[in-house]
């Protein structure tokens, strides 16, 4: 871990200014991802701006009938909120499918969205990795890639966004609210929040430097049946090989997003028209451009089969 300085900001704009004003500065929320990466010198911030005093830890009703989730609401608090459990079950289920109880107590809504990939080569500083060290190459593409992306990747990086919460937020069409150093707010649709790796895999999201997440907003409840199905080798405390977040209406129409397959939650709205025709009809177009590696080719049929399970359970219910 490199030496760094530390401060606690009092207001969102002040926090944003503090980070924007100093190259190498970063926000610190629960620290469950950032501190781990600092110990391994994968992240080497020179200055940390702790956001825990910003009072962004409330969940409020919005005028539109949705919910505004403060950036610092813990994963535990969000997943156990009665309104979330009633109206946005897919979100509560996605969160509790992730990490462990202790981590979820510490992890925040903003931090969760910004967690970095779990590509094993990203974690080993002896290895080439364009995401960790731009231009050094990608060790994973011809290496051990069982966990990694099957779609939307580039020849620079095949990492996935490893999280669960974002997949549910994507299916719910959430919006990420931010503020910049000038105090200007911005609303980023979740679909535009995470990026594909392209030629700049070191940039995970479309946040500007120093831009602070203040909240995540959910639109009005969608009704329907909410499912989050996470497939993994062990039953808990593991990242998804494939996950499915779905909201299925009683007439068989619905929405679906996949986790564990791409650098962002994978959803193509146009493909959802085929939901009533079954899983394969949806995934054929969703994964039409899939380019899996030898190690992770199984994820494509697995995605279809997982969605089929989700749909079948709905029909049985």
């Amino acid at each position: 871990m490199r030496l760094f300085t530390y401060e606690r900001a009092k207001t969102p704009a002040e926090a944003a200014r503090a980070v924007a004003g100093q190259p190498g500065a970063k926000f610190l929320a629960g620290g469950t991802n950032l501190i781990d990466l600092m110990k391994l010198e994968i992240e080497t911030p020179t200055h940390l701006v702790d956001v825990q005093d910003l009072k962004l830890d409330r969940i409020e009703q919005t005028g539109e009938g949705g919910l505004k989730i403060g950036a610092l609401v813990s994963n535990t608090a969000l997943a156990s909120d009665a309104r979330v459990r009633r109206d946005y079950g897919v979100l509560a289920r996605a969160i509790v499918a992730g990490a462990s109880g202790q981590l979820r107590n510490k992890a925040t809504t903003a931090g969760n969205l910004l967690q970095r990939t779990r590509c094993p080569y990203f974690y080993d500083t002896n290895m080439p990795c364009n995401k960790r060290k731009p231009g050094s190459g990608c060790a994973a593409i011809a290496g051990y890639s069982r966990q990694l992306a099957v779609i939307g990747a580039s020849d620079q990086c095949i990492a996935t966004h490893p999280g669960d919460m974002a997949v549910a937020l994507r299916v719910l069409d959430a919006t990420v609210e931010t503020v910049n150093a000038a105090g200007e707010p911005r609303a980023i649709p979740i679909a535009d929040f995470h990026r594909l790796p392209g030629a700049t895999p070191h940039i995970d999201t479309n946040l500007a430097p120093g831009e602070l997440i203040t909240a995540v907003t959910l639109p009005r409840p969608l009704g329907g049946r909410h499912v989050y199905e996470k497939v993994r080798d062990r039953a808990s405390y593991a990242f998804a090989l494939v996950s499915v977040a779905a909201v299925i209406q009683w007439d068989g129409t619905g929405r679906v997003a996949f986790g564990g397959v791409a650098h962002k939650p994978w959803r193509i709205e146009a493909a959802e028209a085929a939901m009533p025709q079954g899983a394969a009809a949806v995934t054929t177009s969703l994964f039409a451009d899939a380019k899996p590696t030898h190690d992770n080719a199984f994820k494509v049929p697995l995605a279809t089969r997982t969605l089929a399970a989700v749909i079948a359970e709905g029909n049985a219910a």
Partner: protein
Amino acid sequence: MKFDTPAGANPTDRMQVLGKPLDRYEARLKTTGTATYAYEYKDVAPNAAYGYILGAAIAKGRITAIDTTLTEAAPGVIGVVTYRNAGKPGVGKFYVQKMLAAPEVDHYHQPVAVVVAETFEQARAASALIRVDYARTDGRYDLAAQKGSAPVPPQGEFGGPNEKRVGDFEPAFAAAAVKVDETYTVPDQAHAMMEPHATIAKWDGERVTCWTSIQQMNWGTRDLGLILGIPKANVRLISPFIGGGFGGKGTVQMDLALAAISARVVGRPVKIALQRPIMFNTTIHRPKTIQRVMLGAGRDGRLTAIGHESWSGNLPGGRTEPTVASTRTFYAGPNRLTRMRLATLDLAEGNAMRAPGEAPGLMALEIAMDELAEKLGMDPVQLRVVNDTQVDPEDPSKPFSTRPFIQCLREGAEQFGWDRRNAKPGQVREGRWLIGMGMAGAIRAGKIAKSGARARLDGKGIITIEADMTDIGTGSYTVVQQTAAEMMGVAPDSIVVKLGDSTFPETPGSGGQQGAPSVTAGVYAACVKLREAVAQRLGFNSAEVDFSDGRVKSGNRSVPLADAAKGGDLLVEDVMEFDKLKDQFQQQTFGAHFAEVAVDAYTGVVRVRRALAVCAAGRILNAKTARSQVIGGITMGIGAALMEEMAIDQRFGFFVNHDLAGYEVPVHADVPHLDAFFIDEVDPTISPVKAKGVGELGLTGVAPAIANAIYNATGVRVREYPITLDKHLEGLPAIA
């Protein structure tokens, strides 16, 4: 004391304390966080500096330059240890790995330097400032690719000859009415124990004392002496609590060697804990094996030909994974061929992990038996019953000391409800789950070795036992306490147990499941001596004296035991030595494992629904700790069956998933209700205490039972562990 004829009746047969499910002797310390582990000692070396290891960035080649200028100038740095100032570290007798790249690099993450600083954080930060240039050379990382050129190595110290024939295997196999000839793969596996390897080393002149985490004191002092180039007598190891080992802390690892070397270089005590991300490529692991099993049988199920050929790889000079050991003794059959080949690989050293040989060997053999049962149309339990033998199948003059294997099978089948299994695979479905049942047999050597103990009786009637035995979470303290209480006829709370100090009488330590049988035999010997000394002090004729209720009785005279120490403590020491019984009997432990799994028909996810083991291991010393060993073994077997694999990058030559996020071991949610039962037996040929080990038996046979259950559920036979969903996904029912 010499043990050379089978034991007759003795005080351990009373079973008033022995066998009882006593709580752990050190339970309170462990549950209150007050058991001190190696890295946590503060007072023993208040000025200890922190060492941090920099592992090699390449797998094979050499260091061409090291620049430590920036590191040495970094805050808090006391010194940097590399091959240039470390002296010439030797190599121990059991592990062949070199503790430092010097300057050749033998495997990835081999230690290149130790940075010693005032704080851990300073050492870690400064380690990132070392500049190392390497010349990389090609290495061998792929066992499958090296298989063709792997020789049958000369016999090593463990595991018997590498090739053995009985009868005439080839023609018998060719002529067999029913045959199985399949190849199975068990991947590299990590011990992944909770406590990392850790040491505080402190020199006093020519002598070094190390607070460490090690399973075998006698090997540890020997090997550290060899590595440091000092007499074994100048090494003291202290290791009262160990947070798991599974064989990965058998003897000296890098933490211990490098803490001692660094402390010598910087002239201050040094503490080192191996960082988790370098443990996987730095320390030993269970090496991958490719195993071909050939079984030939008559239509009656009797094996006529048993062949087992196995390949493993290791660093030059490393040992062969002795997978065929169990095949040599498990089933009857006149024509047998077992052969092991060893390739050279440039990965971290392969060496002992819980039930080396038997665990991976049975992962192959016991699937093959399942495949044979199916071909024969015979129940897998019955197939094992008809092939039982009461004598060593390679040497019929040697009977098994005890072999209630059929009893394990029958009781297990009964308790488990095996008769409800549908022999036809892929038939049972509950909603989205495909349900299957599987079983496997288990055999693991019941070893025992020379073991000493010291016993002291004081005027309050407290008996203190000392031995250099370790407790790696298994319950050693407790079974020592129980043995001594039983022998001396006192309540368990009159016994004080001190373990884990190499100045105590020598035992074989924790390894090869011989710890509990050996140390309790040593305690037996010491207690026999103490009884004699007590009787003598009190003026009894020792032949007729009864020790019970804290009193010494003979005829109508009854004296409190404590009275014997009124005139001063009584101190005795003895060693139990074992002789020819080992050669006269096949001493083994047995088990039968049963498992029920559910496989998601959609995703292929496998979950174990229940598992049960029936084990035979001689006298069970403590019903609770023995059960814990077995259910812990089943848990580890679930990992081996379903998820554990050190993934190799064939280009860079290393285990990629080198932390506990990437190397998955079972969590609570993977482990259902587990049952463990024991056959009520004693083995009088093993020791006066008549007990064999259970710790490794509990793991042996679990993974193949699960593998067979998965096959029964799905009808897809996977022969490559771990059985992850991708390996059978294609064979699952088509989706609508």
